């Protein structure tokens, strides 16, 4: 038994209550930001921002769309970060929920290597090299509560529950929206515990929305490692493509 998120971006209005709820529950400080010509702020995930709604203006078939993507850790069933770290005191999988948990011991890991290992580009490091990311609000979940982001979502975009139930809910929603959005798809749904439903091509929402695209366009020195990871993810990707 494991737990999963289902994030239905077709219902997300980017109110960002989830982004604030995450900061509030984890008591994370606000970053000093400026407006950079976008509603998206902070600019990216960070050691102090585990959840970030990404905003993208995209013209699709001649029609303007403003795509919202509440980005967070996918809690992969077989998490590359965990495998690369190979140190259960730093990164481990909570047996009851399947949550991938980073501890203070991540300080002892090669932070960049862990970050690069993630096909979704999620972990972020502090100055001392400690890593942080979404922890599925494990403390809440262990006490029978849903994660803070799910609790606060007013539109019904965020869901949390038993993985099989979430997957079937996701499939049900996919079937419902297919008529309106023929390109709607579930992202890597057999491999992750954070299942996204997108109405359009996932790449339009975020460069790292799905594992299959993350390995393109990465800067040259990283190539070897990226290739290795790509190899590791090949079965995922092949399966994902079949699914789509």
């Amino acid at each position, binding site marked *: 038994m494991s737990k999963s998120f289902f994030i239905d971006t077709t*219902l997300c*209005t*980017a*109110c*960002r*209550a989830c*982004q*604030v709820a995450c*900061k*509030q529950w984890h008591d994370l*400080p*606000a*970053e*000093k*930001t*400026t*407006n*950079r*010509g*976008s*509603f998206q*702020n*902070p600019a990216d995930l960070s050691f102090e921002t585990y959840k970030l709604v990404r905003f993208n*203006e995209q*013209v699709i078939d001649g029609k*303007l*769309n*403003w*795509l*919202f993507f509440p980005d967070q850790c996918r809690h992969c069933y077989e998490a590359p970060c965990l495998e690369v770290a190979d140190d259960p005191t730093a990164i481990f999988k909570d047996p009851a929920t399947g949550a991938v948990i980073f501890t203070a011991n991540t300080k002892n890991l090669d932070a960049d290597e862990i970050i690069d290992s993630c096909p979704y580009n999620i972990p972020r490091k502090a100055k001392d090299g400690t890593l942080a990311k979404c922890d599925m609000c494990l403390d809440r979940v262990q006490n029978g509560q849903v994660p803070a982001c799910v609790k606060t979502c*007013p*539109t*019904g975009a965020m869901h949390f529950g038993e993985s099989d139930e979430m997957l079937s809910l996701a499939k049900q929603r996919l079937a*419902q929206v297919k008529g309106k959005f023929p390109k709607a798809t579930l992202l890597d749904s057999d491999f992750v515990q954070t299942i996204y439903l997108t109405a359009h091509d996932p790449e339009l929402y975020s460069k790292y929305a799905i594992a299959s695209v993350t390995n393109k366009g990465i800067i040259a020195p990283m190539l070897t490692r990226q290739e290795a990871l790509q190899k590791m993810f090949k079965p995922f990707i092949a399966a994902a493509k079949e699914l789509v």
Partner: protein
Amino acid sequence: MGSNAAENHPISFKYVTEAQQNGAKMINVDPRFTRTSTRADIYASLRSGTDIAVLGGMIKYILENKLYNKEYVSAYTNAGFLVNKKFKFDDGKFSGFDAEKRKYDKSTWGFQLDKNKVPKIDRTLKKRNSVFSLLKKHYKKYDTKIVSKITGTSEKDLIEIYKTYAATGARGKAGTIMYAMGWTQHTVGVQNIRCMAMIQLLLGNMGVAGGGVNALRGESNVQGSTDQCLLWHILPGYLKIPKASNTDLTAYNNKCTPKSNDPLSANWWANTPKYSVSLLKSYFGEKAQKSNDFGYSWLPKVDDGKDYSWFTIFDNMYRGDVEGLFAWGMNPACSGANSLKTRKAMENLDWMVNVNLFDNETGSFWKGPGVTPSKVKTEVFMLPACVSVEKEGSITNSGRWMQWRYQGPKPLGNSLSDGDIIIKLGNELKKAYAKDGAFPEPIRNLKWDYLTHDEYDPHKVAKEINGYFTKDVTVKGKLCKKGTLVPSFAWLQADGSTSSANWLYCNSYTEKGNMSARRSKKDAENKIGLYPEFAWCWPVNRRIIYNRASVDAQGIPWDKKDWVVKFAGKQENGKYVSKKWLGDVPDGGWYPLENPDGTQRKDAKYAFIMRKHGHAQIFGPGRADGPFPAHYEPIETPVAKNLLYPKQLQNPVAVTYSTDSDKYAKSTSKYKIVCSTYRVSEHWQTGLMTRPQEWLMEMQPQVFVEMSEELAKQKGIKNGERVVVESIRAELECTAIVTKRFKPFKIDGKIVHQVGVPWHFGWRWPDSSKDASVKEDSANLLTPSAGDPNTRIPETKAFLVNVRKM
């Protein structure tokens, strides 16, 4: 239209998305593609300030394609009323315009009356002078071609919107509108709403489930504060404010009580004397007696023809005619249009009492940008108020639900609830006036007994609002003991035997308890989500107002599945013989207008009981600017000519002011870009509660100006750079957001640009004294002191600016 619910009323939007999942279509018309637009089935843009053109076009479409609900329109609206033959609309003006006073004489806007002084009605809607015929004539010019030229909306989009929305006119279908300040804050604000209300009436969408004209309020308790008379022109429960010419209670009641000779019109406001006397009994208790007109002479009166609106108060203050100000729970230095004028006006005050959670730009106006503190004489007192969760009381939401809330934590530090502050203030005033003072009676005689254990008791106030029997009386054959709570407003009397501080709320707190504290999740039998035992709704817990319009003349619901009320009385030989309604609390429990055999009943009442003649007003003769909405350009418009009425550019009775701080830009000036102010999800009002909140500031740290890629290119502006937005009144530094979500409009062949600025910011926070690079201020520095002639709400949604690089 006129709202951005996903961003500014996110909880309401939850139900919109739910409706969409059930097959509803959502149309969004907004100058800018917003977070709401992302979820719309149909999105179209329009130039700010041209909504009546779009809606007028829809009226034409509905009429010409016969998509209205004829039965509904004929039976329930004044479409069949015959209008005074002298009524005219020529060259963009209605008959009776006085150019000198810039006011209408409305005497020709009335109806033709029969010998009993009842309006002549042609239910076939065919007569030349009927409202329906005049309506057709009035909107004849609003074809999609001209509407498109004015609004910049494509004809294709207009037709798609019209077709989709007009489909809700079919029997059993419903459509609703969610509007907000995007409609109200115009010099044609009231007419924007009226135009939609007229569409809703034509389509039979008033009083039905899923219908209505829904105001999304700018603050969670706007409905409640208006009900309790926050505005200057009304007393609680929408009773009219006494005027100087209403010299005694009889004169007031005569003037304010409408009279109808039509036996089928309930004309509910005929009860006005019961409500006004009960209000006086509530204000002055035992001191209010029949012999002294129940203390009517102690009520403040307004001068006839004068207005005391927010705009005018600050105009008077600017002219030096106001000595003191209570700024209570508001931040006028940032929230009011033309903020520089507002801020300068405050320098003329001798004193100001600022009641708020935190100090703000208003309380600190004397040290604001460009102000020399030593030159300001105003003495400012700060009274710290506690936050809503720290006090007990009720709020009334947009659906008129009065909901009781309990106290969470105790007020922090020396902050107090508004109730406590008012009680203390009242006590001090009573002490001061006990000895002497000019005209001390109103204060001395004011009933002021709302304390329990020396603390303000919200329950005592809530009970006062509901009202008491002030003596033992027998009403409807039942003995009502002195001091017991009045069960509902049907029991209120004009003889001083009852009190009620707000007749509309009579029934909210009765001997059965506090109705607004109820929390039952049981739905009513019609299963349309009324939840009659959750909280309490005025009037008399009626959840959908004018619900007898949801049935046909025989009491049978238009919508068989999602019905609101239905008549279930017994019938014999084709006649109803007993009265019974099911579902919501009906708008009066009278018989339906017709028997099952089609014969008219003499003991029925028309559905729109608050209207003098019992009919909803497609022709609205009470408005300051005309009985039919007409498209007028904003006071600051980028176009030189009103294409519909070439001789009348703007609302002829729009409100403007004339001090040296009241400047208005013409289309020929350098200010050619339309600007609108708005809100974002991440901030609240002037930002007083959200700007100090770091997690929210992290997401929306700075005031910004959104503009199209095309305008940015023309001005050489890059995304994210600081720019200056300037109006004829002031300049504001903003961060440019260059976006595809604004598109230039093609208005009558010419390109018109529009930009938008959120108004949540102010100079106090982020604190420029700590960081000189920070220059945030309110978007209201830019906005004009122009207002709607009915409400004097400011035109902050359509004015002119220029944008330039720093």
